[in-house]
């Protein structure tokens, strides 16, 4: 047990599980302090793992010493380690934020900490899974915890959004499970590394069907256009720390799986037809334009940010025609980091603005900049990342995407990326313009805890500063890259 806790691989799953259960035992609304302390430890574990993976290559751990195929193997290559790093980097400031956001004893915060712990255990488990069935179980854990978090407010709108989300996520994982069943029936294995040569050697039609089902189910869970219908009510209706977690991390988990399948076991199938990788890119393009349009027209602040998530997820799918070279993958993961940090910051800043003004329309933000300059600065910095202005991580992601696109003669993708940045500028400036309006001094704002503002600011500055330190992240992705 102690040995397992010192190894980062099982530790990253056991620790959040432990503080989630501890928070449940402590009672409703409690457990913030152990969560924050353990999250810091998880973050250190992640840094240690990053160091280890960079030095010695992919790390593995057979759970309980059993080993595959009888037991479960955990595996961390460069891609998985990068996603783990993003998860802990977003979760830690959000935990500090949530501690100040939920008043002690507030009914809407009764189950936040246990669900948060379970969500993180599921996410970390998902990134570390080395077989398709373990992925299914962690996918469901993440989905159920996320639905619980959406329903936490307890209002009719939130319950309806949670149910709609639950049905979407169950349908997605059901399609994925059927794909796993067909693959096991064809090859008698679910290990990702074992499957790769088997599929490459012989792939009957049944496996093509299985691959299609798995990718379709995961796209539904990633809310790729036109499967995004469940996302805006769920992300826009939940409490601010929950929206931040869902938009920054949960949708990235299923994207990571699509990437892992596409580059791994399903690679021989996606190479069958040259136009196949253009299908996700086409849907991504539609997502960028539709999501941005809805964000520009949204009346409520959190709905605007939720539709912006629909648009930003579109960029992640633009990379699929470019995955022949490492540059495409690097652009996608950089975009996942940029959006994860910036969107968490934006929802956190929106939570401050909503608490201060007591309402959540964009029109009602007039004068907020005079009273809450730090929050508005955080919102603006996050906006800089979403628009892709230098020196932010968003700029680096777009730069790499455009470079990879032009290098492979896909200038259409470069055009879409540039147009999306302009559209993002329109919806970010809509909010900022309103907030910087001068109002009569009697308009009063509720006081908000300073730690809320600083947590939002920390996330936003991380999303910008990562642009200056992107090289390390790019190196990490070299580890385990097969192409």
């Amino acid at each position, binding site marked *: 047990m102690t040995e397992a806790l010192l190894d980062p691989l099982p530790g990253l799953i056991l620790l959040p599980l432990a503080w989630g259960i501890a928070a449940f035992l402590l009672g409703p609304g409690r457990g913030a302090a152990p969560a924050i302390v353990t999250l810091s430890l998880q973050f250190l574990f992640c840094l240690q793992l990053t160091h280890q993976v960079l030095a010695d290559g992919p790390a593995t751990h057979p759970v309980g010493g059993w080993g595959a*195929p009888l037991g479960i193997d955990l595996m961390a290559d460069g891609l998985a380690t990068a996603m783990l790093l993003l998860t802990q980097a977003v979760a830690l400031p959000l935990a500090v934020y949530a501690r100040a956001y939920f008043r002690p004893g507030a009914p809407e915060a009764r189950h936040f900490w246990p669900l948060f712990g379970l969500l993180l255990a599921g996410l970390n488990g998902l990134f570390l899974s080395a077989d398709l*069935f373990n992925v*299914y*179980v962690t996918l*469901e854990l993440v989905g*159920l915890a996320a*639905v*619980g978090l959406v*329903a936490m407010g*307890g*209002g*009719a709108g939130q*319950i*309806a959004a*949670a*149910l*709609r989300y*639950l*049905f979407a996520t*169950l*349908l997605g994982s*059901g*399609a994925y*499970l*059927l794909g*796993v*069943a*067909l693959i*096991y*029936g*064809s090859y*008698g294995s*679910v290990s990702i590394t074992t499957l790769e040569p088997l599929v490459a050697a012989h792939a009957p039609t049944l496996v093509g069907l299985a691959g299609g089902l798995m990718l379709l189910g995961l796209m539904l869970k990633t809310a790729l256009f036109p499967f995004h*219908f469940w996302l*805006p*009510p769920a992300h*826009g209706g939940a409490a601010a720390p929950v929206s931040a977690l869902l938009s920054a991390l949960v949708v990235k988990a299923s994207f990571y799986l699509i990437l892992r399948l596409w580059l791994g076991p399903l690679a021989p199938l996606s190479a069958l037809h040259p136009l196949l990788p253009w299908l996700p890119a086409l849907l991504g393009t539609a997502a960028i334009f539709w999501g941005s349009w809805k964000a520009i027209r*949204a*009346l*409520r602040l959190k*709905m605007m940010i939720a539709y912006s998530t629909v648009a930003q997820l579109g960029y992640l799918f633009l990379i699929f025609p470019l995955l022949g070279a490492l540059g495409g993958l690097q652009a996608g993961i950089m975009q996942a980091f940029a959006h994860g940090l910036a969107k968490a910051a934006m929802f956190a800043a929106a939570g401050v603005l909503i608490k201060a003004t007591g309402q959540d329309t964009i029109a009602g933000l007039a004068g907020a900049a005079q009273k809450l300059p730090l929050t508005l600065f955080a919102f603006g910095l996050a906006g800089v990342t979403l628009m892709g202005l230098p020196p932010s991580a968003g700029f680096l992601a777009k730069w790499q995407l455009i470079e990879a696109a032009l290098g492979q003669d896909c200038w259409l993708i470069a055009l879409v990326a540039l147009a999306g940045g302009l559209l993002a500028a329109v919806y970010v400036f809509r909010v900022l313009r309103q907030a910087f309006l001068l109002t009569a001094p009697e308009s009063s704002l509720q006081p908000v805890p300073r730690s809320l503002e600083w947590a939002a600011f920390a996330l936003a500055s991380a999303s910008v500063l990562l642009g200056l330190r992107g090289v390390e992240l790019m190196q990490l992705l070299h580890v385990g890259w097969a192409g």
Partner: protein
Amino acid sequence: MSTGLLFALVGAALFPMGVAGLLVQRHLLRRILAFNLMGSGAFLILVGLAQRQDVADPVPQAMVLTGIVVAVAATALALALTRRLYALTGRLELPDVEHD
């Protein structure tokens, strides 16, 4: 025809029925039942397809046991949310999406 293949074919019939129910039905209880039908279809395929020469493979059976636990948890969560929605609105259908 072997028993395993028969199981898999029944599963292949159940799964799309469940998906259709989940998409088309409006009554929440029917949708929850449809989800369970879909899950059972996938489980039957998982067990049936892996069974060669009528020798049972234990690995997919362990997987299906895990899958059943997940499905029970998901059903319980869906029922709890449905009850809550009924207590709040008196309806067993999801309201139409508000356009914002």
